[in-house]
């Protein structure tokens, strides 16, 4: 079936790279013409001119996508000159993939150099401009408008308050926001509620942040992990928060390494990890109870008064050692693994990436695995302090990732 390839030409796309890529994909979906990609930085202007001046055999249609715009006057002049020439068989799409075209967040106008370019482009007959906003424009009302418009495409309404809540959870990266909106729209009610956002917004809530980031760390891929970390920083996550996440991650690895070193087979390390932080330990770490029994038995100690009672009566800790907290103060809680599958992550990483093909009953290997976990935990802890009080958090985060993705046991 022939597609409708009557999109007006030339097209200029700029702004958020993720959304711009989506714009390109939707144009591609609507055309049968051959799509040729050229770079305005690495291809010569003459070769772009030649491509745009040559039709195929049998006068076939062609779309030329020009990306990688350099910040050079002659390139800008050339592009304007190129798109000013009409050809029914050749369509031209210019994508500012390097984000040269930026708007001033205060004045909402383009900078002078590229503003002139956009203005000349707009004046060309039939020209279409797709402005996908950019990071500076992500702040304030634009961001809220973007969320509202994105939901509207799926016939859903969202209030400003809920849109603000969504950015608090997901961050300001439009790509991440759109990815979340697309998923949420499948199950969302016509009017998005606060509860729905809280239950369904994914990427950067603390737990999911931990999962996303640590999943990448567990692949052992330093470059990809650094890239993801930078993406989180760009979407305005605090380096301190990321470092704390990393520390928590290596602490679980340390615990798993210790259990394995102490003689537990990998299969029982998972239960031990899942029981950590659960009260009372006497019940949760007793192997004679099943998980459901443990749950039932520990149920009655959930309340803080019952906890005190238990510690007083069973463990013999005197009541005077317990202090009553002011009503609004948050109770410190031991860290626990929220889901079963999170316990698999440190185990799978240690077993497959760190131990690998080495003999699993070799005491030297066990010692090295534990030594690795302790060294990395102490190193990340030290780096966390440096991030809090230092001046170069990016370098510290990169060093943390370098340490965590290091699976070479011979160095420990």
């Amino acid at each position, binding site marked *: 079936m022939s597609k409708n390839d009557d999109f007006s030409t030339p097209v200029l796309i700029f702004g958020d790279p993720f959304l711009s890529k989506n714009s390109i994909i939707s144009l591609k979906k609507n055309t049968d013409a051959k799509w040729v990609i050229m770079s305005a930085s690495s291809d010569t202007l*003459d070769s772009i001119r030649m491509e745009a001046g*040559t039709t195929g*055999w049998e006068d076939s249609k062609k779309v030329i996508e020009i990306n990688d715009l350099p910040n050079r006057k002659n390139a800008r002049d050339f592009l304007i000159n190129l798109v000013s020439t009409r050809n029914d068989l050749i369509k031209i799409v210019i994508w500012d993939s390097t984000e040269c075209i930026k708007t001033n967040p205060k004045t909402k106008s383009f900078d002078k150099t590229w503003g002139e370019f956009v203005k000349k482009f707009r004046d060309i007959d039939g020209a279409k401009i797709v402005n996908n906003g950019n990071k500076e424009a992500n702040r304030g009302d634009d961001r809220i408008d973007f969320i509202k418009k994105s939901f509207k495409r799926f016939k859903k309404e969202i209030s400003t308050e809920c849109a603000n809540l969504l950015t608090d959870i997901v961050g300001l990266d439009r790509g991440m926001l759109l990815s979340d909106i697309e998923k949420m729209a499948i199950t969302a009610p016509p009017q998005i509620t606060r509860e729905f956002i809280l239950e369904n917004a994914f990427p950067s809530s603390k737990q999911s942040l931990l999962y996303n980031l640590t999943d990448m760390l567990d692949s052992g891929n330093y470059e990809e992990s650094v890239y993801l970390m930078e993406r989180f920083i760009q979407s305005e996550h605090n380096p301190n928060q990321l470092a704390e996440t990393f520390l928590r991650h290596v602490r679980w690895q340390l615990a798993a390494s210790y259990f394995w070193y102490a003689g537990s087979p990998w299969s029982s390390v998972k239960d031990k990890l899942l029981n950590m932080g659960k009260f009372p330990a006497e019940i949760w770490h007793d192997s004679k109870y099943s998980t459901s029994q443990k749950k039932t038995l520990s149920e009655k100690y959930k309340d803080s008064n019952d906890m005190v009672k238990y510690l007083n009566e069973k463990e013999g800790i005197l009541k005077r050692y317990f202090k009553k907290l002011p009503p609004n103060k948050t109770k410190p809680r031991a860290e626990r693994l929220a889901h079963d599958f999170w316990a698999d992550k440190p185990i799978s990483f240690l077993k497959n990436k760190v131990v690998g093909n080495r003999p699993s009953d070799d005491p030297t290997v066990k010692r090295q695995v534990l030594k690795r976990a302790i060294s990395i935990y102490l190193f990340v802890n030290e780096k966390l302090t440096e991030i809090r009080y230092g001046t170069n958090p990016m370098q510290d985060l990169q060093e943390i990732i370098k340490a965590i993705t290091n699976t070479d046991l011979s160095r420990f």
Partner: protein
Amino acid sequence: MKVKIKQNVLEEALNKGAVAALLDDAQTDTSTMSLLVKSIKITCNKSFTIEGCTNLMAVKYTIPAKEENGITVDEEGCVLVPAKEFTNWVKAQSKDAQIGIVLSELATPEIINPLEGIEVEDGEDVSIKKIGSIKLVSKDSSKTARKWELDCYDPSQRKMVSFASEHKGTKHFEIKAKSLSTALSKIAFASLPKDYEHVLDSVSIQKYENDLFFATTDTKRCALYKIPPSDIDAIESDNPLLISVNLLDTASKISDEENKLSFYYNEDIERVFISQPNIEMRLASTEKGNIKKFPNIKMLLEKDYDLLAKTSRIGLNSDLISCALVNSSSALFSFTSDKSMLVIKAISDDSKYKPSVTKSEVNSLSINLKAVWGVTHLIDALKIIKDDMVELHIPDNKKSVKIKGEDDDGFLYFAMAINNPKYASDLDE
């Protein structure tokens, strides 16, 4: 398995039979069973066979296991060994060495589980059976001996491609192997390095009247080569074939130039089979639906092109190289018949250089013409043509140019004219 084989014989066998398993496609395979994909199957009985396969290419090379061929089989057998390691070791031995290959089997095969620790669905077998190792000994005339050992796996785990006639599909044609290498050397340059539809990075083999043509195009130009009729035995199908330039080039390099190549096409599996007495190859073809996206060469061959001019190949090449310094993509070609003159003017969009103008004399010029053509397009064609004089032909609509040597050596080249507004004022003059 126990076999003695001369190093040069084994190296040649590996150069041919192991080529598929040595392709990047196999060597960069990261699938669970990649160990097997990177391996070749060696079979010793009355013949000595090496075979390897990937989705893109499969090759089976067979030679009779006779002493006069440099092969002595003491004990028949069949193993699967890592192609790269085995080939590299064999290549490192001296040419006059005698290589001994002996299979040392384990009492019980060792099971290697590449997914150890990862749960797999029931019934999914992801284990690799290591049956032992092959012990390699190389002795040459200087009595230097080298020994090595390589793990080997159960050959029944790797299903090789069947080259039985019922799997090959329809026979298309039979040509001399030398014609294939000549064709590729003449036309490969006009293809794109990579095309996701595998149309523009492929060679189209088309029948036109009673001739067989090999063609490549990047949409802006098209190179054709007509296989000399004396090199063709039979053309049995009118349907075109479309095969990746790289795969066909690899096939051409490992085929024996003295023998004929038979081409078959199995439409159901979209694979081309190429046969020679000792070697069988299977290459991936472009998807059925995309084969027709390659232009029909009939359109070019039946179009009327009139002779525009004849000129010296060396002179034109020098002029083009001068112009390419300013603009390698396009230049204005102005032919003036009363002066028998060709003026080539190059203007650049990069504004770094002043325009370049060269003048030269041409022969047999019948009309005045101004056209913009790709400079590198013409230079590429002149590299292939060996005649002293080249002919330029143009059609009525002047949208393209045909270039050929004065003597018909089967090579034809078409380049599209370029619409470049930089030359608009010159064209209007």
